[in-house]
């Protein structure tokens, strides 16, 4: 295995870590299965690609985050105000986003960003480490933000919302607003992950987001099985570590000759095994009592 392969795996793992940190908010903190992810990841790709084509890669990342938040707000409103089931709400937004993403990309299913400067370009003199450095910086910013935010009073309310809704309402907190806020942040970071992904691959495709939810879940589960700590800092570390580790496993599988088309099947099986094994453990413990 040569340096390019290792760096490539770390870079992709890092990008998926950004997305997984978003998914961590909806899946772990809010305890809401949010299927918007596949759509909002592509949304980030599309926005970022369009701004890169117009030579504004940094603005592209920022706006991808903001527009991703909006997608989360839509899902949040569907769930809380219109009382649509969380799973269905996510699927609805995701489906709607397919059309919106196509529109953003100028009705073309893919955009190539070769020849355009990206956020990675200014550090090109540090090659081949340039991309990894930029990605690490972004991960650190996201982690620091989440680590602070989730311990503020607003963050506490958000976490309590996924823990015990009755208690949150009894503390005069509007659980609807908390869910919308949480889903907005979650999809904002997922979209940011997509934005970095597009500039890294120098390519944006309408199908980029397919299966991202499963990759994110796998990363979170793998990370949390390895790092079992409750403190927010450790949990964030677990998510980042899980994403990188998971990508490393896939890279090894690819190197060993696994066809890349089988990756998603492998991801899905891995998630099934991880979730099933924790459920089995719980079942066994219960039957012992």
């Amino acid at each position, binding site marked *: 295995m040569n340096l390019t392969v290792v760096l490539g795996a770390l870079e992709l793992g890092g990008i998926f870590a950004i997305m997984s940190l978003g998914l961590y908010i909806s899946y772990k903190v809010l305890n809401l299965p949010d299927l918007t992810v596949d759509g909002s990841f592509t949304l980030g790709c599309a926005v970022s690609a369009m701004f890169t084509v117009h030579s504004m890669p940094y603005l592209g990342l920022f706006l991808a985050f903001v527009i991703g938040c909006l997608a989360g707000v839509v899902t949040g409103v569907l769930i809380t105000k219109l009382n649509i089931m969380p799973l269905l709400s996510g699927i609805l937004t995701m489906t709607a986003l397919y059309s919106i993403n196509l529109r953003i990309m100028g009705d073309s299913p893919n955009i190539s960003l070769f020849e355009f400067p990206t956020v990675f370009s200014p550090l090109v003199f540090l090659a081949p480490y340039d991309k990894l450095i930029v990605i690490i910086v972004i991960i650190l910013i996201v982690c620091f933000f989440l680590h602070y935010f989730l311990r503020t009073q607003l963050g506490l309310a958000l976490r309590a919302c996924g823990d*015990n809704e009755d208690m949150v309402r009894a503390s005069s907190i509007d659980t609807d607003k908390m869910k919308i806020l949480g889903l907005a942040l979650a999809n904002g970071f997922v979209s940011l992950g997509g934005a970095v992904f597009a500039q890294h691959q120098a390519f944006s495709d309408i199908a980029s987001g397919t299966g991202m939810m499963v990759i994110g879940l796998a990363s979170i589960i793998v990370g949390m099985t390895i790092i079992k700590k409750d403190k927010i800092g450790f949990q964030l570390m677990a998510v980042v570590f899980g994403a990188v580790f998971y990508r490393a496993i896939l890279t090894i599988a690819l190197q060993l000759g696994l066809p890349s088309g089988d990756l998603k099947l492998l991801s899905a099986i891995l998630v099934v095994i991880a979730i099933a094994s924790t459920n089995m453990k719980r079942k066994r413990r219960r039957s012992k009592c």
Partner: protein
Amino acid sequence: MLELQDISVIFHEGTVNEKIALSHIDLKLDKGDFVTIIGSNGAGKSTLFQTISGAIQPTQGQVILNGQNLTGIPEYKRSRFIGRLFQDPLKGTAPSMTIEENLSLASQRGQHFRLSLFSHKQKNEMKQALKELDLGLEERLNTKVGTLSGGQRQALTLLMATYVTPELLLLDEHTAALDPKTSQKVLEMTSKIVEEHHITTLMITHNMEDALKYGNKTMIMKDGQIIAMVEGEERKKMTVDELIHLYSTSTHDYNDRLFLKQ
């Protein structure tokens, strides 16, 4: 203080399953009143609480607290003035968060959220308040609430519900799931906190002794109606047996007898 005007709650109105849970309830409480409520299952006690707290909208009638009409105000907004405890000790706290974090949430009730971490001063206040519970929780601020016992969790919930002094406290059999000794301890705590802060309180209980021992009024409910309100001298002299007698014989003719007496 708290005023209920002609409250009726009807479930599944107009269907075969129609159930009148509350029927034309009128109630007026003064500030500092501590009312114990007894009544058999299905008498409407919990429905009454849910109507006051906003979890259920009444079919008819109004809830007025301190001159403010609460009818139509959502549950979470009412929580600013109304503290609540449920029978299930797991309901009032967030299990995967620490004691400190739970209390911090309770301490901001009715305020706007701040994007700040909690300060040393707040921490000391929390420790002080926990010390009064006398459960040693002040040394365990970073313990996850999920690892506490039911009694400890209920005591913590009590503290959280009264951390920012509410105008009204609703206790829905909050000690029923605890063992007798812990139950008494939590009740003593409740009584102490309520008296100290002069909080208007409604407490549902199935324990006749407690119903007379705590508070200054006892209310009996049956079939969605308040059928008796015992207070003053009559209550002071009343024994548990007399209360049970009143509770089991009281139907509408009890009301009639009362009228005849007057």
